[in-house]
């Protein structure tokens, strides 16, 4: 097959395999459902979190309507925490675009930190629902584009099940105690990822946004969090991406050392510099601002930003966080066009 007729899926899988591709793909490992897509189906955002078919349908529209080169479920960050026993709120009453949140935490004080996994954990909460959605998407669009999902990193997950303020302080005061919790959560994450792998995903992103360099120092990241991320990436079988947002330039080598196939950084990272640091073969995904550029920016600004990402040397054009649903159709089309016509 000639290189120019690659499907999006072939291109992305080749990229992960370290082979040469004709241009950077334009996809994401994080949520990318759009209001346009939901509208085309007549779905409410709040309902899409609780029904496998609606979730799969909604997630597929970003490819079907705009040619975005992947399909990713779910859309929120509560799946693992819910399976661990947290109560969530999907704001079913609301017409606004509200993302599900944790209503009740699992750990309320320091001496409740020694938790164990509920039995049958990997079948709890919405894990089976997400698996079903993955299966539906594979059948629907999985021949053209890769199907992906994400799990939280252990620190971010810890911040979902206990008070983040306490977690941050204990990271200094009782690193051993925090480490123990992170070890357990790393196991839990591998179990969830295992279910998603069985359901047939092509790649997976581990989102450790709670450990962003805007909040946590590189030293704490390296000492306390990186070891558990390594444990996770060691045990994943599909191509994997580690996402951390914020000013990540100081920690990109640590991110790479975790064993993730690719790293994902946001608009605060200077990718040209990261590229220099990590060398030409490292897979760096990024790094446009999904809100200020893609939603609030003009098509002109979208063009310039995509060009800059590629000039700086990203391996894939990829957002700094979830694509914000209210993205205007014109901007997302402009983005796809700009990436498709780019030649290094």
């Amino acid at each position, binding site marked *: 097959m000639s290189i120019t007729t690659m499907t999006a899926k072939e291109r992305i899988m080749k990229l992960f395999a370290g082979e040469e591709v004709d241009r950077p793909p334009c996809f994401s490992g994080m949520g990318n459902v759009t209001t346009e897509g939901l509208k085309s189906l007549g779905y409410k955002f709040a309902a899409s979190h609780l029904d496998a078919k609606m979730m799969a349908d909604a997630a597929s529209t970003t490819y079907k309507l705009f040619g975005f080169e992947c399909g990713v479920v779910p859309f929120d960050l509560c799946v693992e925490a819910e399976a661990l026993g947290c109560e969530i*709120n999907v*704001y079913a009453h*609301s017409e*606004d*675009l*509200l*993302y599900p*949140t*944790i209503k009740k935490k699992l750990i309320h004080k320091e001496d409740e930190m020694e938790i164990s996994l509920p039995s049958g954990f990997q079948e709890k909460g919405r894990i089976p629902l997400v698996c079903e959605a993955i299966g539906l998407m594979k059948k629907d669009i999985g021949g053209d584009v890769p199907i992906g999902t994400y799990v939280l990193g252990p620190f971010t997950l810890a911040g979902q099940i206990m008070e*983040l*303020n306490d977690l*941050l*302080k204990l*990271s*200094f*005061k009782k690193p051993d105690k925090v480490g123990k919790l992170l070890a357990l959560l790393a196991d839990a994450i591998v179990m969830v990822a295992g279910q998603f792998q069985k359901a047939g995903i092509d790649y997976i992103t581990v989102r450790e946004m709670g450990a962003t360099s*805007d*909040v*946590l*120092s590189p030293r*704490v990241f390296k000492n306390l969090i990186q070891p558990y991320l390594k444990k996770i990436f060691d045990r994943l079988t599909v191509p994997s991406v580690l996402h951390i947002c914020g000013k990540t330039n100081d920690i990109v080598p640590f991110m790479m050392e975790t064993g993730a196939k690719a790293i994902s950084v946001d608009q605060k990272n200077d990718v040209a510099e990261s590229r220099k640091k990590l060398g030409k073969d490292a897979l760096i995904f990024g790094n446009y601002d999904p*809100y200020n550029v893609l*939603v609030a920016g003009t098509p002109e600004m979208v063009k310039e930003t995509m060009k800059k990402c590629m000039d700086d040397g990203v391996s894939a054009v990829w957002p700094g966080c979830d694509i*914000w649903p*209210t993205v205007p159709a014109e901007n997302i089309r402009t983005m796809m066009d700009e990436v498709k016509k780019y030649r290094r």
Partner: protein
Amino acid sequence: MAADEKKKELLERLRNAVIQYDEDAAKEASREVLDVGMDANDAIFNGLVSGMEEVGRLFEAQEYFVPELLMCADALYAGLDILKPHVKQLDLGVRGSVVIGTVEGDVHDIGKNIVKMMFDVAGFTVYDLGRDVPLDKFVEEQLRTDSDLVCLSAMMTTTMTGMKKVIDDLRTKNPNVKIMIGGAPVSADIAEKWGADGYAKDANNALKDAINMISSLKKLKEEAEARKK
């Protein structure tokens, strides 16, 4: 002479306890302040708060991150708890009370907590409603407590619009209340358009503003003190 020296030593110890986030040291120094009969106001502003100003600088310089900031705040609170009951007149002319929270649908509360801490330090009475706060609750709490200031935080462009609803509602029910808004997607333009009285830009600027606030409080206090003499 010896008393002056002791005073200097205690202020230094209070300051360092905050910077080195050492709660025990903050408590110990605060108790000694009371033992030697030193002025509690002096200890708070020239010891604890002075330390917090340095912490703000370290945060801006990215030597300190959020956990350090939170721990420094704990050390400051530990000292404050001991000293506050002995403050002679905390009435600086600008003392007030504030209702603060992150609006409905939004769980991002790290920034809000940092802002809250600054108000605590400045001697405000703070009613913290937490995160994901139903919009009506802000108005209810303001009316219940008759607070001077309502502070709204939002970190997402969608939840941010909830702030406008709260502002409108507050304005009709209580035109005198001051409203300050903040969070990453908020801007000075938006604050003005929606009719808020105040706004602070990002982590560093909010901190700077809060520190300026504390500094101006200190100045007011010094002026008041000077007039007394």
